[in-house]
């Protein structure tokens, strides 16, 4: 199935990442959003509030992020494609419902336009300090899919992908933007609706009597039913069996959590996506995502001008982490330099995947501004010696 031409603003635009993300959601078929104002993400819901009644969607500004992040899950069970948008403290408040969405396998998209923290931190300035929170922020064991755009164009593209992943895997999907990408204005080309592939709801075709709402297909993912269609199913955040009924015991926990984790881990290769630049002969591999990848790219080019064999791996899907690719590169590279706008989060993943086969160097930044390419170049030079 493809996007609805009535809702897609096909053509070239000059727009910022936040607005592009909103258009991406609409193109993906999002017809419900709930949000609470918070800098630097608010433009996404402001635009959605303006666009919603024109495209057959509903927007509601809720009383807080707790409400926003579960209103979208209620809407999703009503058959809507739903998302919410937040930043900083708001993302912390949404954690419980990311876990609820994972546990109840509710297709949903959470956008986090990252700003500096902790706490109120830097409301108007960028950071990438939520990478681990995005992965581990809700309590208990679960898996997440997270995408990190590095341009307004990608804000559009990855919102479509986020909704598709959410439907395909029946999982919450996080779009991890950052303030710089959200507020950066560039050319965004919105394709024709017919070029935008959408993954439809995995609606069951079974009769109500034969339908078990949490019975998985061989791929580990159950079929979906929406409220009001006669299936009269039960959904709970408690550990539950295939009927959706609470079953508070260790074997059921093993079966359910094992499946929830497995349905993403077993498809990690299919979900993985990264951009690679000059990796064919790279001895020094920069690893960076989001806005930081653009600075790292410049540093890589400067290193190449000095004939240092540097390359760049830019994870686009940041969770599940592209550990297989890191492992391959570790076998032949001299060093990874992980450039991120935090005090060391993804670097742990790189170190873990590299497993000591090559050196891993962290190039941290507390946030508020991006790295300087010259500073990265200095580290590249050091690593190359």
């Amino acid at each position, binding site marked *: 199935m493809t996007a609805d031409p009535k809702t897609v603003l096909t053509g070239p635009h000059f727009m910022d990442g936040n607005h592009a993300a909103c258009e991406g959601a609409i193109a993906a078929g999002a017809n419900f959003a709930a949000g609470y104002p918070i800098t630097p993400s608010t433009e996404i819901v402001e635009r959605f509030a303006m666009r919603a*009644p*024109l495209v057959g969607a509903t927007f*509601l500004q*809720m009383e807080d992020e707790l409400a926003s992040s579960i209103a979208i*899950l209620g*809407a999703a069970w*009503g058959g809507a494609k739903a998302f919410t948008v937040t930043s900083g403290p708001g993302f912390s408040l949404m954690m419980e419902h990311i876990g609820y969405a994972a546990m109840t396998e509710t297709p949903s998209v959470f956008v986090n336009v990252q700003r500096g923290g902790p706490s109120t931190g830097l409301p108007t300035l960028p950071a990438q300090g939520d990478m681990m929170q995005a992965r581990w922020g809700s309590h208990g064991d679960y898996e997440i899919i997270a995408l990190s755009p590095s341009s307004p164009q990608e804000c559009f593209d990855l919102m479509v992908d986020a909704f598709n992943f959410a439907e395909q895997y029946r999982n919450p999907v996080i779009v991890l933007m950052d303030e710089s990408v959200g507020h950066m204005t560039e050319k965004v080309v919105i394709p024709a609706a017919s070029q935008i592939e959408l993954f439809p709801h995995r609606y069951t075709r079974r009769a109500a009597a034969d339908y078990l709402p949490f019975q998985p297909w061989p791929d580990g993912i159950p079929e979906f039913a929406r*409220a*009001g269609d006669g299936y009269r199913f*039960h959904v709970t955040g408690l550990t539950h069996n295939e009927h959706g009924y609470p079953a508070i015991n260790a074997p059921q926990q093993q079966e359910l959590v094992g499946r929830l984790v497995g349905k993403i881990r077993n498809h990690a290769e299919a979900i993985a996506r990264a951009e690679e630049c000059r990796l064919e002969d790279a001895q020094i591999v920069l690893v960076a995502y989001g806005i930081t990848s653009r600075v790292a790219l410049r540093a890589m080019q400067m290193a190449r001008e000095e004939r240092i064999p540097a390359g760049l791996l830019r994870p686009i899907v940041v969770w599940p982490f592209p550990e297989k690719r890191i492992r391959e590169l570790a076998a032949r590279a001299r060093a990874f330099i992980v450039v991120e706008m935090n005090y060391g989060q993804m670097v742990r993943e790189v170190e873990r995947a590299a497993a000591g086969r090559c050196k891993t160097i962290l190039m941290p930044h507390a946030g508020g501004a991006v790295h300087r390419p010259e500073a990265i170049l200095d580290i590249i030079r050091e690593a190359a010696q």
Partner: protein
Amino acid sequence: MSAPTAMNPVEPLLRSERMPHIWCPGCGIGTTVNCFARALERSKLPLDRVALVSGIGCTGRVAGYVHLDSFHTTHGRAIPFATGLKLARPEMTVVVYSGDGDLIAIGGNHFIHAARRNVDLKVICVNNFIYGMTGGQVAPTTPLGATATTAPYGAFERPFNLPFLAESSGAVYVARWTAYHVQHIAHAMAEALQKKGFCFIEILAPCPTLYQRRNRLGDGLETMRYYKQHSVIRNGASTRDLDLGFQSEITVGKFVDIERPTLQQTMEAAYRQALQQRYAGWRA
């Protein structure tokens, strides 16, 4: 009822395979579910088009026992979940069924805002004055002087008057009954199911295990006798006057039944006025 077989009127609403339920002997929650079954039957609503949303707690378990599209959500968030569901499925009747701690303490902010917006939800609050599921802690409804595990010397915070809170926040239908008043509860629920907008029904119910026992008030049956003897029906009473004290007289009745446009109506009217033909409506 002259059919050759007879069925408990609550049975079509139950997930019978999940019986017996977890509620203690003498708990009033199950009694309210009987009333809900009768109200649904009277409302003639097709059960496929009724959803029930609960939060966390003893009353939160109602969702797991009713054979409807039923959602056991997170603590305090039944109302915003139900709001999203109602907006996405306007043709459904969405009932929120939860306890006083869930709806009024952790979920208090959502409660007042949903009433303000007049979301078309039927909110049933079983108020037992205590946190049952977690073992008897003080609630924002615990009467002054009553003890709880976290108020061992007696509650010293003024409790909420729930009908007053609901009315002043914007609810269009407000009633309070006790678990003793089964016919009135069923009637109130049936009225709410037929009414558009944010309807609120408070039902006082015994928690013999944690509230009554700790406060030496006897068992569930003694509590029901207390309700019978000390409740006064005052339909139309001002909600200002409905504070509950420790073992005080209980004013019950229907206090508010007004008309006000719902969230969906005000939303659509605003869009239609501003956008006219450009308003695309709701594309489900």
